[in-house]
């Protein structure tokens, strides 16, 4: 009883000085909020500063040399007299390596994340996911060393057979699937039951033979290829795809997990099989997260420096033909890393600023693709929530 009175009194006295106290409290609250805001916006400020400083050193290049040479010429001779700063081949090299690694890492990463989230039992997943994520913990110089010292000689000495076996392993299941689906489609139009079976077998045999011939000819062609230099776009693409893999798997697995049991169980309740549930329910629901994962992974490949510097061969030319992944290429990141030492005001300012122009391009590309992915995620979420 006594205590209650005291506390009542306390409250009333608090009420008396409230005008002043409230003011103080309000100031405290505001300063607290402001501090949090400053800390939270620090990252954004850092990004802005990076943009500002890179742009500040990139703009002089375009003032000195203009845009045309940089974006249209493939002659990269910054140290010659007169210097030539055609970056087209280098931009193309970056593109090539990024696309190559995405072609490998994206299907692999999405399949692995589906396997982790919907197929493997929980106790197995607990061990597999950390192992995949461990790929991200390996320093990039270790990847580069592996690419240069182990993988490059391997490609040179037995590149043909390696390519052939990879082709067989990857293409066989897909072609098998294609043959089955194609023959089903063809025979589904036949009405008579007695005719259906022999036709089905004949069509399957025919398609199977064609597929086998296709496999064989492409395989022997690949086997006959001689790889002149193991430090090439293919080598780097493969290594980069392994570096992008943990990002893609981890983020898209989280997205798949976030879809939740209710959607899956609803799908099963409607009579869908597991495959149908995964393809028609879970994947569409998680697609925005998966897309974000893919873009993050691609950004990882685009921005990687050490591996490409060590293992891409660094030759600033467009391979001939343009899709030839067995030739050396040079990327923007490797050029910045490799040329920064010699390039400063001492040796002519264009040569220094051109590297920042390259950095600006990388920055803009990753910024734009992040914005796009953000947009897609937001829109997808709206669609899913039925707005």
């Amino acid at each position, binding site marked *: 009883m006594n205590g209650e009175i005291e506390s009542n009194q306390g409250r009333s006295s608090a009420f008396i000085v409230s005008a002043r106290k409230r003011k103080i409290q309000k100031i405290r609250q505001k300063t607290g909020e402001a501090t949090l805001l400053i800390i939270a916006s620090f990252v954004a400020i850092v990004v802005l500063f990076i943009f500002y400083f890179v742009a500040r050193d990139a703009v002089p290049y375009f003032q000195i040399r203009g845009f045309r040479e940089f974006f249209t010429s*493939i*002659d*990269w*001779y*910054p*140290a*010659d*007299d007169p210097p030539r700063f055609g970056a087209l*081949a280098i931009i193309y090299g970056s593109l090539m390596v990024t696309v190559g690694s995405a072609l490998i890492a994206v299907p692999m990463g999405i399949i692995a994340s589906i396997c982790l989230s919907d197929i493997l039992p929980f106790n197995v997943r607990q061990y597999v996911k950390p192992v995949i994520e461990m790929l991200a913990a390996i320093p990039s110089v270790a990847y580069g060393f592996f690419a*240069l*010292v182990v993988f*490059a*000689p391997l490609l*040179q000495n037995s590149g043909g057979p390696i390519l052939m076996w990879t082709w067989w392993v990857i293409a066989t299941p897909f072609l098998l699937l294609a043959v089955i689906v194609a023959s089903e489609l063809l025979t589904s139009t036949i009405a008579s039951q007695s005719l259906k079976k022999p036709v089905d077998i004949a069509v399957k045999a025919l398609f199977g033979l064609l597929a086998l011939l296709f496999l064989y000819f492409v395989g022997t062609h690949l086997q006959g290829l001689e790889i*002149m*230099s*193991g*430090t090439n776009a293919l080598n780097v693409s493969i290594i980069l795809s392994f570096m992008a893999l943990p990002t893609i798997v981890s983020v898209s697995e989280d997205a798949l997990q976030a879809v939740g049991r209710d959607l899956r169980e609803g799908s099963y309740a409607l009579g869908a099989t597991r495959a149908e549930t995964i393809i028609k329910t879970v994947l569409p629901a998680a697609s925005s997260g998966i897309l974000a994962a893919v873009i993050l992974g691609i950004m990882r490949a685009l921005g990687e420096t050490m591996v490409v*510097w*060590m293992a891409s*061969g*660094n*030759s*600033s*030319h467009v391979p001939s033909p343009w899709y030839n992944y067995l*030739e*050396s290429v*040079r990327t923007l990141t490797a050029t910045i890393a*490799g*040329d920064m*030492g*010699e390039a*400063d*005001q*001492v*040796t*002519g300012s264009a040569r220094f600023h051109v590297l920042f122009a390259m950095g600006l391009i990388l920055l803009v590309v990753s910024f734009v693709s992040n914005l796009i992915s953000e947009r897609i995620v937001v829109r997808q979420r709206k669609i899913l929530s039925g707005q």
Partner: protein
Amino acid sequence: MRKLGTVLAALLVIMTAGWAGNAEAAKGIVIDGSTTVGPIAKSFAAYFMKKYKVPVTVSESGSGNGAKSLINGSCDIADMSRSMKPQEIAAAKARRINPVANVVALDCLAMIVHPSNPVRALTEAQIGDIFSGRINNWRQVGGPNFPIVVIQRESNSGTQETFKELVMKGRAVVSGAETQASNGAVKNRVSQTRGAIGFVGLGYLDASVKKIAVNGVIPSAATVKNKTYRLSRDLYMYTNGKPAGVVGTFIDLPKTPDGRRIIQELGFVPKY
């Protein structure tokens, strides 16, 4: 809270120790620059530290970086496998630094190919044609029918600059040439690649690669010394002003018998 205190105390101790260490290193000699001169600088440093108890730090970041470090005042000695360019000297003068060239040793650009390559000799003109892309198959220089993989150094490298000056003479290196960041990396790539050709300093030659005679002369200590091997050059250690004190003692090492022995052991040619 006590734990935090302990951690802080530990950090403080580590930082003080690190700072003290830095202070001591500042009294020593800091060397930066060419990867070609690097091995000499490192062996000299080991010898010097043992004999004079003066700490010496050696970094290898390329001749261009060495010059930059000297100009910025972040090193005492800049290892360079080429002489300083007029622009670099001007930049140094602008910062009140007076770069003085001290020749440490003689070296050459040894052209190397894969050990399985039957080609034994090339002329300077042929090498120029290979690196400018006019010759792109070993068949054209009397070898097997196999494409040539040209390996050059990055633009930081004094070896690359010397090569361009001595062999290319104003021509551009073919754009498909691979670029490697050090002598060791070039040797490694050439030793692994059947069609490759590259160039390294004399000290990097060993059995994993095959050296090529240029204009009929095999690169060796003798042919560099008597100047019959055409692609020879001086290796420098640049200092700010005439070297004095410990730096002077260090720079004079090539003139001592021990210095000559070290240079010879590393596969370079003593100048004195």
